[in-house]
């Protein structure tokens, strides 16, 4: 490790640089528009909560948050759900083409979302999924499922195989064993995986915006549209930005103990 004399200033300096842009947004969200555009001030001269009030009272704003939360939740549940059995198979069995399959899963994460925009649009129009939460959730699975399989596989490989064998000898069927015995053992792994699915789905905009128009419009897309329609309403924009950070910050607070552990144990 580094000496305390050196490491503390480095860390503090980095944290300062890292938090300044976020502080600036918070600062703006509490100012009036005249002040934002008019003067350069380190903190609000006239403190106002109007920007936040606008968001909490206008349905076109707060429905964006609800939409985002819905598809992120669906995506997280589905991604973890399909990744669990697959990760188990990769960690416990060898089978025809297993290594190729694992690398192929990885390649799906390498496809630029921009590449998929048009085909997704057409595919989901054809099957009638356009502008639904499910469409965005399914589209986001392209990059979340491979990640979920990676992380879960690492956690599962950390569980001794003898546990499986003992359970089978005791007469457990596979589903019963998996849910009653195996899942509780990798609880923290499931938590970490869910966190990463949440994170990558929450921050993605391109696919979410393309696949929705009205009913499932994510907050990130609402931000871009409302701003252009109302001129530049910097204050409300900043307030909306601050509010998009809140759910993520809450989630990370709850899983903070597992994150580091999750990475260390996972295949990553």
């Amino acid at each position: 490790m580094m000496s305390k004399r050196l490491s503390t200033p480095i860390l503090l300096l980095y944290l300062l640089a890292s938090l300044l842009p976020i502080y600036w947004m918070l600062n703006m969200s509490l100012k009036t528009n005249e002040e934002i555009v008019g003067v350069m001030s380190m903190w609000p001269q006239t403190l106002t909560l109007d920007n936040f009030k606008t968001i909490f009272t206008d349905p076109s704003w707060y429905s964006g948050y609800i939409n985002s939360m819905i598809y992120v939740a669906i995506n997280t549940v589905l991604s973890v759900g399909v990744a669990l059995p697959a990760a188990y198979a990769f960690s416990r069995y060898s089978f025809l083409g297993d290594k190729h399959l694992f690398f192929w899963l990885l390649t799906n994460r390498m496809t630029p979302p921009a590449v998929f925009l048009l085909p997704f649009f057409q595919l989901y129009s054809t099957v009638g999924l356009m502008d639904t939460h499910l469409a965005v959730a399914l589209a986001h699975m392209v990059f979340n499922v491979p990640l979920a399989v990676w992380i879960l596989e690492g956690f599962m490989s950390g569980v001794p195989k003898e546990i499986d064998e003992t359970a089978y000898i005791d007469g457990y069927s596979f589903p019963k064993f998996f849910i009653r015995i195996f899942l509780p053992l990798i609880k923290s792994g499931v938590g970490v995986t869910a966190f990463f699915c949440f994170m990558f789905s929450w921050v993605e905009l391109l696919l979410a915006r393309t696949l929705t128009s009205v009913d499932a419009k994510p907050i990130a897309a609402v931000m871009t549209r409302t701003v252009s329609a109302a001129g530049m309403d910097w204050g409300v924009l900043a307030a909306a930005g601050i509010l998009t950070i809140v759910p993520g910050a809450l989630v990370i607070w709850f899983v903070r103990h597992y994150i580091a552990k999750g990475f260390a144990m996972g295949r990553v």
Partner: protein
Amino acid sequence: MKTYNNRAWFLILPVLLTVAFSAILPLMTIVNYSVQDILGPTQKVFVGTEWFKDVMRDPELHEALLRQLLFSLSVLAIQIPLGILIALAMPASGWKASLSLVLIALPLLIPWNVVGTIWQIFGRGDIGLLGYAINRAGIDYNYTGDSLDAWTTVLAMDVWHWTPLVVLLCYAGLRAIPDAYYQAAKIDGASRWAVFRFIQLPKLRNVLMIAVLLRFMDSFMIYTEPFVLTGGGPGNATTFLSQYLTQKAVGQFDLGPAAAFSLIYFFIILLFCFILYNWMQRLGTGDKS
């Protein structure tokens, strides 16, 4: 070690089905477009590899690709060493570790267009702290007008946004090193540099590999942030590959060329990741500590 059992395929079936729906079908649509000239909903002409030849000769694409490579390599060159440094500087346990972990991870959880928006304001000379401070320091800075300023602002934004991921990975890797290694080093009287070079760095190889791969892939696909921040300008200074592609596909409705472009784009990423992966794996076989 592992049991050979082909029935394991049944467990993978759900993943295969969902990924098939969300990845293989769209990919095949693109392959389909890339060899046809689409004149209307019902009118299509097979053109073979025509679009691929076109795209490969497009000078604007070459520029965008070069810009992209330069950007991704700069991202790696800055973020990886910085990430290792910060991870080393972080306390190993206690409330300080928890707090700095949460604070460091914060930029990762901000939606990408909000990231662009933050920096759009933050960098402005009149109302943004960064732009104001730099101008005050006597340096002429204007990210909307000057291509070099725009370029560095996008890079700074990406460093701010994604270094936390490298820090998290390295921090986890460091925590996984057993204490016995450090004790042995202490007995041998190893210097701090030697501990880093011969214990910590080799042990970080696995997490660094994934950090390099993830950062390379994601920076190569960067779209939303520069789009919001600079819109690709001034001129084409910050038009990266995916933005150029989206302009072509959505703006000009050139389905065929855009599809051919997409495939080439995908293969470039695949190729680089493959090379990086193999190179970094070979790198580690020398010292098996």
